[in-house]
């Protein structure tokens, strides 16, 4: 190896080291540019040498560097190719990376040189005059080989190198056969040389063997390639068939679930339809039941009240016409009979009224609260006089959204209670007022009665809920239940604020009149 060659090869090695990928280093681009420059220099030296060597023309730039003879042309060519390859490392022309092509060419030249040295054929390592001491040294060839492989490996993730370590048929092929040409050349050379040197073998046999071997190897290479591709094709077909099978299976499964879904949907629709019909039938039935119950109630009213009336009436006839001929016990019994019959009649009437409140229509309209209170106090005037009661309306009373009959019933029941539940010998004092409560009016009726302990304040609105014996405070125990039901049916609510001894303030809420109404 001449010193020039060594210098150029060192330059190339340094250049290759500089362009190795290291993107995290901040100075990468600087290093890359330096490597490129060094590679260009090497390429230029190689080129100059080549021109000088092949054409005898000295461009003049290499004189100072020639320290011990000219580098042989394969070395110069290798230097040129590797230098260009490093310089053009990041250049791509369509699908081809020129640096790879140049590296492969260098690789081939190096291999050729090494084979030439092994078999002692100077032409193969660049001797232009068939002399063994001329041409590229085996060390140079080895370094070129290493550098070319290095250049390929410098960007192992792309181009030919990517193919080499891929799992595609191409990758398999490349891995298996990439070194085959070199091996073939080696074997063929060996056979040729053996035949040349064996004196008993005709020279023509050597040429025939050489050609035959070349032919065989080429054919074998083609068949090997064909085999690899064929197997890959078969595998691909198999995979394709499997995939198609999968698609068919999945499609069938999908269709099946679609059909099931559709069937389920139809079932649901059918059930839904059936349900609607059932609901309609039940509703009709329910309405019929309510109607027949109403008829029953009406008949009960009529038929139950008749005996009540007869009992009370005849007892009172006896009391009125035969009082002189009866003793006090008999009279007391008769009074009790009459009172019991009257109580029974009141219960019948109240229960009927309460029952009807559950389902009867209560059409609401704008009602003057003041007018209704006046009507009720007038109706109860006898009771007011009898108990020396005073009723005071405090402040203006609004119009409310109510059913007139139900409203009057509510007022009657509440006022009757206010007159009834009093400590002995206490004249009732009742105050009525109204105050706004959101979208409602709250009507409050304050009395000076006996009051209600807190634990009973909810209970008293239940049917038949009494806190006192009917003898002390007569009544059916349904009055407040009717009040609550009536108010709730009109969209309001009821309540009471009370404590024993401080009177009670019963209140109920009714909706304001809608603005749109006159």
């Amino acid at each position, binding site marked *: 190896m001449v010193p020039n060659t060594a210098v150029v090869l060192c330059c190339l090695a340094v250049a290759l080291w500089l362009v190795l990928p290291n993107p995290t280093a901040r100075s990468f681009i600087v290093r890359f540019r330096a490597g490129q420059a060094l590679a260009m220099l090497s390429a230029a030296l190689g080129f100059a040498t080549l021109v000088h060597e092949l054409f005898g023309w000295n461009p003049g730039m290499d004189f100072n560097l020639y320290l011990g003879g000219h580098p042989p042309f394969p070395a110069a060519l290798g230097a040129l190719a590797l230098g260009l390859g490093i310089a053009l490392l990041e250049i791509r022309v369509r699908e081809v990376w020129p640096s790879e092509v140049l590296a492969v060419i260098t690789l081939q030249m190096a291999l050729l040189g090494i084979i030439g040295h092994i078999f002692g054929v100077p032409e193969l390592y660049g001797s232009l005059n068939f002399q063994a001491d001329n041409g590229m040294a085996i060390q140079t060839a080895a370094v070129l080989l290493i550098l070319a492989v290095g250049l390929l490996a410098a960007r192992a993730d792309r181009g030919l190198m990517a193919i080499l370590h891929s799992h595609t048929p191409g990758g398999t092929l490349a891995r298996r056969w990439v070194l085959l040409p070199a091996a073939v050349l080696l074997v063929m050379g060996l056979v040729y040389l053996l035949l040349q040197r064996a004196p008993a073998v005709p020279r023509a046999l050597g040429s025939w063997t050489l050609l035959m071997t070349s032919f065989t190897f080429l054919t074998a290479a083609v068949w090997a390639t064909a085999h690899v591709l064929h197997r890959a094709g078969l595998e691909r077909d198999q995979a394709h068939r499997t995939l198609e099978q999968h698609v068919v299976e999945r499609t069938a499964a999908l269709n099946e679930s679609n059909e099931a879904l559709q069937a389920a949907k139809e079932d649901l629709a059918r059930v839904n339809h059936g349900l609607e019909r059932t609901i309609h039938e039940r509703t009709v039935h329910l309405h019929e039941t309510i109607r027949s119950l109403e008829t029953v109630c*009406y*008949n009960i*009213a*009529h038929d139950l*009240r*008749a*005996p*009540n*009336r*007869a009992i*009370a*009436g*005849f007892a*009172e*006839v006896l*009391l*009125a*016409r035969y009082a002189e001929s009866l003793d006090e016990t008999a009279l007391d019994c008769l009074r009790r009979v*009459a009172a019991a*019959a*009257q109580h029974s*009649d009141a219960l019948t*009437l109240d229960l*009927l009224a309460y029952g009807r409140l559950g389902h009867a229509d209560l059409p609401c309209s704008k009602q003057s609260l003041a007018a209704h209170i006046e009507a009720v106090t007038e*109706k109860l005037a*006898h009771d007011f006089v009898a108990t020396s009661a005073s009723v005071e309306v405090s402040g203006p009373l609004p119009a409310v959204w109510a059913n007139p*009959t139900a409203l009057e019933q509510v007022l009657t029941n509440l006022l009757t209670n206010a007159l009834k539940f009093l400590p002995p010998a206490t004249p009732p004092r009742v105050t009525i007022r109204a105050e706004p409560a959101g979208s409602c009016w709250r009507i409050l009726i304050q009395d000076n009665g006996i009051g209600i302990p807190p634990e009973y304040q909810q209970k008293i609105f239940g049917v038949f809920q009494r806190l006192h014996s009917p003898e002390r405070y007569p009544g059916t125990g349904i009055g407040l239940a009717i009040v609550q039901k009536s108010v709730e049916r009109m969209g309001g609510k009821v309540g009471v604020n009370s404590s024993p001894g401080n009177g009670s303030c019963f209140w109920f809420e009714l909706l304001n009149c809608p603005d749109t109404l006159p």
Partner: protein
Amino acid sequence: MSEAIILSVDDSSDDFTLLKLACEAVNVSFQLLPVQSGEAAIAYLESTRDSLSQGHFPVPDMILLDLKMPGKSGFDVLTWLRAQPEFARLPVVILTSSTHAEDRARALSLGATWFLVKPIGYGGLQRIVRSLDQLLQTKAAPDSGTSLDTPSSAELAR
């Protein structure tokens, strides 16, 4: 003037008996003629048209009519009555145990003079009897011009 006649149409003999006792107690000027059904009432009124039987079946001056009866109801009788020219102006007082507003409205629209709810107790019944007597005397006096409003049930029941 002969005694006025009130035809009482009621299936309950208890109620009729009490009414009769109340009339005795109040000492009214009218006579009560009881019939127990709507059919019987119509049959009686039909009979009054027969001039031969006038003496046995005098035309009543007023009808006291219960509403709920087996067979023809009070409404049926009232409808029939108002369709007869000679009974179209006969005073008809409904005396029923029904407290329903619908019944009251229907009876008045069919041409009832008064709508009274049967009271519980002897006192209420006596007040009703007095009111009936008063109504009869008003009707009997020609050109009195005053029409009596239905007394309120609450007032009568007291």
